[in-house]
Each structure stands twice: as C-alpha cells, then as structure tokens.
C-alpha cells in the first residue's frame, strides 16, 4: 500500500498527457497541464512521507516523538505550486487573448503558425 500515492501520481500525469494529446479545446489543454502539475506535486509530497512521522513543526511536536515527515519535499512542492499558479494564470491569459482574436478555442483551428 505504500506505493499507492506514487501510482496515483503517475496516473494523474498519464491522464494529463492523454488530455493534452487528444483534446482540442484550449481550456481543456490548460486543465491537462494543471493535472500533470498536480500529479508531480503529489509525487513530491509522497516522496517525503515517513510512516508514522509527525508534521515537521518543532514547537508542536509531542514529547518523545519518533520521527518527522521530511520538510524539504514539502518546501519543493510549495514552490512548485506557486510556479504552477503563475504558469496557469499566464496560460489562461493567453487563451483569453487568442479567443478574442480568433473567436474559437479549437486548437485544431489555431494553427496560423505552421510549416
């Protein structure tokens, strides 16, 4: 059962990539990217999980605790979430602008740049 989070995160990544390849709606593409991001974040967090560990807050630690969950992966995940937020906001802004110019969200029709 210990590997369940990793399996789940890989499934999220696979779902995201599937969405990116098969979907044509720009918003759905952005959602696909976000799903991949969530999968990667889940992977990072579960990487730092220690069975029976407590939250890595020193002042809240009960006396005689065994071990803490690793704090570094959590910091990494937090940074990745912040970056993901910026990316998503930028992507959505571009989608809005594209929609204004072309009047469509179909990625199959937004192919002015090719060849």
């Amino acid at each position, binding site marked *: 059962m210990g590997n369940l989070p990793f399996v789940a995160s890989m499934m999220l990544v696979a779902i995201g990539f599937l969405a990116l390849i098969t979907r044509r709606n720009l918003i759905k593409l952005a959602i696909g990217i976000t799903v991949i991001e969530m999968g990667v974040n889940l992977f990072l967090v579960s990487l730092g999980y220690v069975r029976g560990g407590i939250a890595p807050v020193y002042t*809240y630690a009960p006396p005689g605790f065994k071990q803490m969950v690793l704090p570094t992966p959590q910091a990494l995940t937090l940074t990745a979430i912040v970056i993901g937020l910026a990316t998503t906001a930028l992507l959505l802004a571009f989608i809005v602008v594209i*929609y*204004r110019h072309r009047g469509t969200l179909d990625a199959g029709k937004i192919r002015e740049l090719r060849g």
Partner: protein
Amino acid sequence: MSVVVRTITRVVLPVALAFGGYVIMHGHLTPGGGFQGGAVTASIVALLVVVLGGERLKGAKGWLSVLEDVGAIAFVALAFLGIGATFFRNILAGSGGLFGAPVPTGPNPGNLNTAGTLPLMNWAVGLKVIAGLGSVVILLSLFGREDG
C-alpha cells in the same frame, strides 16, 4: 448579485481577512507563510469581483500593481540586508532586537518574535501575492467583460 451572495460575502470577508493575516504572520512558526496567506487573502478580491463585478474594481488595478512591486522590492531588499555577510544572511535572528528573540525549545505555543528576517520576508511575499493574484483575478474578469 443576489442578496444571499452579498450577505455571505459580508460574513466571510472579515474571517478570510483575519485568517489570511494569521497565516502570513505565523509563517515562520506553523505551516503556511506569505504565499498561502496571500492566496487566502486574495480570494477576497475574487469574492468582490463576483459581488461587485470587475468593472467597479478597475480602479484598484493601478494600486495593486504598485503594491506588488513594493512587495517584490521589499523581499529583495531584505535579502540585501545580509550582504555584509552573504546575500540572504539572516542578520536579525538571535540579535535580541526585532524578531531576534531566542527560539524556545520543547513543546510551546511558539514565539512570534523569532526567526529574524523570515517573518518580514513572509510579509513582503504576502503583499506581493495579494496584489499579484488580486490583479490577475480582476484582469481576467475584465477580459470577459470586453468580449461582451
């Protein structure tokens, strides 16, 4: 907007503001910090956009971008404070002055007056995130309006 949304917003607004402020201020003691608290606080802006509409918040855009820059500059400036030793050096920690109290050991409710420049950096980040996310929300709502 309907009366229900308005009333709920009026109730939620101070709670969200207080909780966001708490998360930012306790960033160096508990999980959370500038980004999380800022995101909570910025959700108020999203609520206001829902209630008032983006048009009425248009005027706030300029102020928010100024605040965002101020937050970013404050963060870099705080990192520059340590340049006597190294960049990002936490010179206030353990100095006894502002945020310089020694960290108590053992289980305790936590002392806000510790961790040196870290709480200040959390505030700077919180300011930047509130302003940044707020202007993103307002701008995205305005995009929709102009398409009509």
